């Protein structure tokens, strides 16, 4: 841990109501939430991507494995990618046992996050409804509920009357084109203030000596011994990364990017089962609270929740064609509005205020690609599709363990890149519904 002592800092003031009051009275200001550091020539590990996954990985490397000589590199600012563009939904009601166990751990970590990181991430476990509009989707809901229960996850199928009780704004009559026949109800599901998660991990990692480097773009990954050009590719090992701020030598590089996962992995000569599609989202003007739960409709490809500020936040399924531009489209908001009004006719006078999009790395089996690659020292935490945010804490924890111990933790064995060589894909593909 070269130079660690030199860069450790005295613990800054904790956040609390008392501290707020004190500083308020004294008119004092708060210290920087994380430091600006010079880029070192060498680190024990380099994490590419300053989003929730990269920051959580760095945090757990330091907290659980004492690896603090770690740099997190982001080509823009922290949380500038999917972390700040998602709809902040957290749930664990997946279809497969491996998925359920994994996301259940994530929910558990989210529940403790505010205290552990000493920042209010506003995890609002308001309940999560996945609506079913057909026999087929209702069957899938039952399937998920049964697997969830076996995994110890609170999840059950409820009927239109109970749905109406949980969420009065939904049209549970049999009139609409897509009548609501039932829903998978998941009480622990909810929403989190996504930016706070970014800042919380960054601040906590910073306290332990991890360095956050913004506006630091990785332009190449340096390898030796691989079967490809420049020693890249299978059989080789990582020696460092090249950035717009100079070269860094490191034995471990962890690709925690979304949207650029293929491009970064190509730098190490690793090809991925990923295509990148934008996922769009939109927010309305605020109105007084009326939507108590998170509502998802797989068949209608829409999910919606109301923020504490009173806005409705919407998302849909990814754009139909592969694309790296995040400009957003009109047809997205049109389809979205139509589907929302199918569910909640009463909101037709609410106005869309802003739309945006983020990049999603879609895999063939709707499951991530995590862990080791054919290049020694190059790890991936990618392919997060539309469900990366909810997995951030557990991914960070597991990736940190993999990087620190050199062994694949049980919880992520199913998500190994090698499954695509032997054709043993993850069964989340069985659930034909948007992954929110």
């Amino acid at each position, binding site marked *: 841990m070269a130079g660690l002592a030199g860069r450790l800092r005295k613990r800054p003031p904790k956040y609390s109501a008392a501290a707020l009051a004190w500083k308020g009275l004294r008119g004092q200001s708060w210290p920087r939430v994380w430091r600006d550091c010079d880029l070192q020539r060498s680190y024990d590990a380099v994490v590419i991507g300053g989003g929730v996954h990269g920051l959580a990985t760095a945090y757990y490397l330091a907290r659980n494995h004492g690896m603090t000589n770690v740099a997190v590199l982001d080509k823009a600012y922290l949380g500038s990618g999917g972390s700040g563009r998602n709809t902040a939904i957290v749930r664990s009601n997946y279809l497969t046992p491996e998925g359920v166990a994994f996301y259940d751990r994530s929910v558990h970590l989210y529940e403790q996050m505010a205290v552990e990181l000493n920042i209010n991430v506003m995890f609002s476990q308001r309940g999560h409804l996945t609506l079913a509009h057909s026999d087929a989707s209702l069957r899938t809901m039952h399937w998920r509920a049964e697997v969830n229960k076996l995994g110890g996850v609170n999840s059950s199928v409820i009927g239109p009357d109970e749905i109406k009780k949980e969420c009065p704004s939904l049209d549970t009559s049999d009139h609409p084109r897509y009548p609501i026949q039932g829903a998978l109800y998941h009480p622990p599901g909810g929403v989190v203030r996504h930016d706070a998660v970014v800042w919380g991990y960054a601040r906590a990692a910073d306290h332990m000596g991890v360095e956050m480097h913004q506006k630091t773009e990785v332009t190449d990954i340096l390898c030796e011994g691989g079967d490809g050009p420049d020693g890249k590719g299978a059989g080789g090992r990582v020696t460092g990364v090249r950035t717009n701020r100079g070269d860094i030598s490191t034995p471990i590089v962890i690709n925690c990017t979304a949207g*650029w996962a*293929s491009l970064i992995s190509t730098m190490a000569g690793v090809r991925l*089962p990923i295509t*990148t599609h934008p996922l769009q989202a939109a927010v309305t003007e605020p109105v007084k609270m009326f939507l108590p739960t998170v509502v998802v409709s797989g068949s209608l490809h829409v999910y919606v929740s109301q923020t504490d500020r009173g806005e409705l936040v919407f998302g849909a399924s990814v754009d139909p064609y592969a694309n790296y*531009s995040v400009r957003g489209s009109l047809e997205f908001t049109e389809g979205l509005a139509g589907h929302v009004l199918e569910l909640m006719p009463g909101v037709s006078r609410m106005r869309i205020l802003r739309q945006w999009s983020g990049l999603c790395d879609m895999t063939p089996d709707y499951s991530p690609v995590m862990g080791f690659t054919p290049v020694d020292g190059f790890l991936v935490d990618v392919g997060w599709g539309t469900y990366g945010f909810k997995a951030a804490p557990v991914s960070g924890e597991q990736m940190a363990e993999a990087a620190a111990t050199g062994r694949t933790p049980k919880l992520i064995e199913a998500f190994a890149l090698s499954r695509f*060589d*032997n054709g043993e894909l993850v069964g989340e593909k069985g659930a034909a519904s948007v992954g929110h």
Partner: protein
Amino acid sequence: MLLVPCPNCGPRNSTDLRYGGESHARPDPNTASPAEWRAYLYLRDNPAGWLRENWYCASGCRRWFSIERNTATNEFRDPPLPGNKRGGAA
């Protein structure tokens, strides 16, 4: 709404077409190794730039065609070629 230059219909709204993904040759099913076949099924170049890909003019001429598009800027390189290779698993 992206305009996709269909070789038969001319420029059409992207919602009139079905996206067929990256174009690449289908390996010989009788000689392909598991690695080759699964690369064909699953692995993608996914570049941020020029990409040859397949489209199906579903609402128009109902013809599959292959064309180069820049995935960062959404420009197309005319003219598209009819037919060409398929885009992997259904």
